[in-house]
């Protein structure tokens, strides 16, 4: 279900790994209202539109967020044309 018409001036949302599976898509373009000014507010706004980002993670983990490819805290500001990615704690590198 699209939340906005695709546009160059929209906010680009990306979902990875178990967050992508919980949401059901790997990304979308959104145009939240002006009062969505922080990552935490964006998460709440997405939840209100049917995107429960933390459903896959359970109580043991917290969602990680990157704005324009830099990891940030939930109180970090978001602006209208940012790239905002949501993902679980990372698990790259070797197994040991």
């Amino acid at each position, binding site marked *: 279900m699209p939340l906005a018409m695709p546009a160059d001036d929209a906010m680009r949302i990306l979902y990875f790994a178990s967050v992508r599976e919980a949401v059901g898509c790997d990304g979308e373009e959104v145009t939240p209202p002006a009062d969505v000014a922080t990552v935490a507010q964006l998460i709440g706004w997405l939840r209100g539109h049917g995107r429960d980002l933390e459903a896959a993670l359970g109580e043991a983990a917290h969602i990680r967020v990157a704005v324009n490819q830099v990891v940030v805290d939930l109180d970090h500001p978001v602006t209208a044309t940012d790239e905002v990615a949501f993902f679980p704690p990372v698990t790259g*590198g070797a197994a040991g």
Partner: protein
Amino acid sequence: MIRVQREDIDVAGALAALVDGRQDTGALALFVGLVRDMAEGRPVDALTLEHYPGMTEKVLGAIDAEARRRWPLNATVIIHRYGRLMPGDRIVLVAVGAAHRDAAFDACRFLVDTLKTEAPLWKLEEGAGERRWVAARAADDAAAGRWSTAATVRSRR
């Protein structure tokens, strides 16, 4: 040199790039991570690595820059694969060239420990008829935490 790629890792080629004709490098330290056929007592038939194109390279570059800031290094190579891999396959290569072994060993370990907790990649295991996302481990955060600034001062040469 930093690469994020689907293709297999050429270990000999990476070591050659590390030296690249330099004669002031006295020590090469190398780490290669492989896919194992077991994880936490469960069999692993395949491991798929998902990554964040663009950000993965950026984060590896930042970790590399931090290693070069902390230790006197002549060269570094970081190669991380993504895609569906089988047991025995190479996942990641980290290699460091320095004048002396202390910096080479310590910087190599720092790069390996730090990329595990910061590089945006996620592992999906297949085995015993199931598919499951690997969970990040507190032990990995602890390993990365050993590289607080106070700990690394001791190993600088």
